[in-house]
């Protein structure tokens, strides 16, 4: 166990020394890896932020059925029975005009406006959850409910949200694909970097094997090197994303304030940052591992 630890410690020190010995090459490699990771990471941040923006509103398909303000209790009960009986309806929630006004009063932006009202202008309404996302269902029910007595207006709330949801899904897939390709790129970059290192140290590797070095011993300093290169690249990509989001947020602030929102793009949190660094270290490790293994196979 102590021997094992000692062997690992030696490799670690060796790899660090090698990183430090060629600062120019190390910096370039770290930048390449950093940029390759920053692209999908930045894209992912934007998507996640937009998603949380959209996530505040339910993405379930819904219809709102507004009744005429003169509707009586009996009218309401009549509509409810019809609405509940309709095919494709999953849930029905009644929002009385009083509770709608109360909800409006709770919104600090609206209190002032509501206070000026003499009587309640809001209608009674049903919020109806639909059984499927099928737009034909929403269209059919919209027509059906509009024809009911005492119904003033039927509104499909969720169409734009569905569109946004679909768009975000598309963006997520695109970012995931990009991430996959660039992960390959990262593995390729470390593979090649390590290959060059192996070439300059081929003699040492050959002699070491002849005097009893195991494959693991040969591999160790290289995979440490690859993992460190990957980790540094991960840190570089985080630095790039953090500074890019900062710049973007400065431009985003006036835009968001036009919509009365304090929306800004949040950078990845601690867990995310650690995960990114860990992932890129693992990919660097993999690239180095494959590179050394390829060399050892050739040399055998």
């Amino acid at each position, binding site marked *: 166990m102590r021997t094992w630890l000692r062997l690992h410690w030696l490799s670690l020190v060796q790899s660090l020394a090698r990183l430090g010995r060629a600062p120019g090459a190390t910096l370039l490699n770290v930048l390449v890896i950093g940029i390759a990771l920053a692209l999908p990471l930045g894209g992912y941040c934007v998507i996640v932020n937009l998603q949380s923006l959209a996530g505040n509103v339910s993405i379930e398909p819904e219809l709102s059925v507004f009744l005429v303000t003169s509707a009586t209790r009996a009218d309401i009960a009549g509509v409810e029975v019809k609405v509940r009986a309709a095919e494709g309806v999953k849930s029905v929630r009644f929002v009385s005009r009083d509770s709608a006004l109360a909800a409006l009063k709770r919104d600090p932006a609206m209190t002032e406006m509501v206070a000026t009202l003499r009587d309640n202008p809001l209608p009674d309404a049903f919020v109806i959850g639909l059984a499927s996302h099928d737009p034909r269902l929403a269209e059919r029910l919209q027509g059906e409910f509009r024809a009911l007595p005492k119904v003033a207006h039927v509104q499909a709330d969720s169409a734009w949200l569905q569109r946004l949801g679909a768009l975000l899904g598309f963006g997520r897939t695109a970012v995931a694909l990009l991430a996959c390709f660039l992960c390959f790129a990262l593995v390729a970059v470390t593979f090649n970097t390590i290959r060059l290192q192996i070439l300059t140290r081929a003699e040492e590797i050959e002699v070491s094997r*002849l005097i009893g070095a195991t494959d693991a011993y040969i591999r160790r300093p290289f995979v440490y090197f690859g993992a460190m290169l990957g980790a540094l690249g991960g840190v570089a990509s985080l630095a790039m994303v953090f500074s890019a989001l900062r710049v973007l947020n400065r431009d985003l602030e006036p835009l968001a304030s036009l919509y009365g929102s304090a929306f800004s793009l949040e950078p990845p949190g601690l867990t995310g940052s650690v995960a990114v660094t860990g992932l890129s270290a693992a990919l660097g490790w993999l690239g180095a591992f494959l590179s050394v293994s390829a060399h050892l196979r050739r040399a055998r």
Partner: protein
Amino acid sequence: MSIISFRQVSKRYPGGFEALKQISFDVEPGEMIFLTGHSGAGKTTLLKLIAAVERANGGTVLVNGQNLSVLRPRAVPFLRRNLGLIFQDQKLLYDRSVFDNVMLPLLITGQPHREAARRARAALDKVGLLPREKADPVTLSGGEQQRLCIARAVVNRPAILLADEPTASLDAEYADIIMAMFRDFNQVGVTVLIATHDRGLIEKWGRRSLALAHGRLA
């Protein structure tokens, strides 16, 4: 039991060249033995088979009781740690000091650094290179480089020492010094196998010898 045992061993290289044909012999523990023959007779190939650098195409090679034809690749490094190899082309590493060259086998086996340094110095002392431990191997003379190879080969205290033409590039006087070192190691129990084309050496030291000619034992 023999420490090295060849039974009907053949080695054919890709391309069809038959380096060894049906070789059989035994080496007893603690023996010092010469392997002779003209260049191209198969001496180096035979040493490579013992160190599992090459694999035999037929027959059985036993080293330290291990059958090398069924030895898994993973086990090869541990076989080699029991061998001291002195290569014809020396294979010194010129990017590090004399001391670090001798340290290499000890670091590979994961020896504690202080103990490794002590043993490396002891090995250098034995071959008379201790005063030059910080030197660059390039600055050593041919004989000194050969001694450095010996120090590296014996630092792990191997049971078997294999030397491929260790005196080829040295004058007679220096060759004697090197041979005396091998004799000293042999006297403390190390089995020594020396490949050489120099018949004078064999006559002078009077040990058993195996003569190879065109891949066969004469």
